[in-house]
């Protein structure tokens, strides 16, 4: 299953490098969101840590939805999904390959977006980068796994552009809560009494649960 998933993820990343349709749009959106909220809050250095943490996670989640809306676009373009469904591979590998590509897109966006957020909100100081990066990576895994599953579920719907955010956003609320809590803890604030370990552990558990859930259901979701 891993081999076909990696092959599919590679195709999607190659297509993105050539066409620059998804990541570029995501980058513009997340950068615009961070800049607009920065000026809306008139954040001074260190004054709005909680607001800054919250807005970072909100921006990431909405940007992820933007990418997820295009997660099966290449397949829809010329019926390539039919070829994938008829290929002698575990259909979960189609979901996993797409999720891996989405994870890659999110990481690429955050490599640019997080430094911009940092520069705008924290001219001095800022959160401890290690727990913040760990939270972002774990959250990206969860968003990619759950979001791609929801995208597969919405694939056949005529109103999928509306349906997908409706499906995804409630499912990723726990990720936002854990991410924000981990970010507070990275500032040295409370993190459920365990510093960032608690929310990071929750994110890892969330990823494992949804990995198992999505693995078990993607065969039927994509098959139908």
């Amino acid at each position, binding site marked *: 299953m891993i081999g076909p998933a990696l092959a599919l993820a590679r195709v999607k990343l190659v297509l993105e490098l050539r066409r620059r349709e998804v990541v570029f749009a995501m980058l513009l959106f997340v950068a615009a969101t961070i800049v607009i909220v920065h000026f809306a809050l008139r954040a001074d250095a260190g004054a709005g840590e909680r607001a800054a943490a919250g807005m970072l996670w909100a921006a990431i989640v909405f940007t992820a939805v933007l990418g997820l809306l295009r997660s099966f676009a290449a397949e829809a373009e010329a019926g390539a999904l*039919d070829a994938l469904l*008829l290929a002698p591979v575990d259909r979960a590998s189609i979901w996993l390959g797409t999720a891996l590509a989405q994870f890659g897109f999110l990481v690429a966006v955050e490599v640019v977006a997080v430094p911009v957020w940092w520069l705008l909100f924290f001219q001095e100081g800022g959160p401890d980068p290690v727990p913040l990066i760990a939270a972002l990576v774990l959250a990206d895994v969860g968003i990619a796994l759950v979001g791609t599953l929801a995208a597969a579920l919405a694939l056949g719907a005529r109103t999928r552009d509306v349906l997908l955010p409706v499906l995804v956003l409630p499912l990723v609320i726990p990720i936002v809560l854990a991410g924000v809590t981990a970010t507070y803890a990275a500032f040295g604030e409370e993190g459920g009494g365990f510093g960032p370990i608690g929310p990071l552990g929750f994110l890892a558990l969330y990823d494992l649960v949804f990995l198992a859930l999505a693995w078990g259901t993607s065969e039927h979701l994509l098959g139908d």
Partner: protein
Amino acid sequence: MQAPAVTLEECSKRFGERLALRKATLAVEPGETVVLLGPNGAGKSTLLRLAAGLLRPTAGRALIDGTPAVDAPRALRARMAYAGHASQLYRGLTARENLALHARLHGRDLELDRLLADVGLADRADERIDGFSRGMLQRLALARATGHDPALLLLDEPASGLDADGRALLDRALLDGRDRRTQLVASHDADLPQRLGARAIRLDAGRLA
């Protein structure tokens, strides 16, 4: 291994209010070639997609070797191919990259250069297919569908967009597969059954004649 049989038993498919296929019963024997003729909107594409397992019947059954087509296991999917109206290719990849992905998904080490040469695309192998004409996409789709030498080949209007050379190429591919594989081809070409020595079946307004 014997080529698989395709069977439709009282198979119907409804899309909303429209009944695209009405109680179709059809048996394609192993190694048989059947050409499905009929006007636009007759239900040919629906029938082929049901036979491929890409659609679930509203009523009745579509079977491949006795197994419901929608539940075809991996081993069976490895022995079949379907080419529909859409090319089923990735537009941003080159012709060679598309076939390489197909080979990878089928776990096969295919001779990509030979496959591309067979359909007259050797000199365009490393071009992205965004710029390919409809006929070139059809040729590449044919290479993809036949590349792994499937035992069951389902083709939906494969001559669409092909020039005279392309149509001759398609005829050769279908003649080459005759007796060796089960072939079900939807076409507007009324002469095709005669050229292939195949059984012809007419479909009109969702009903098999």
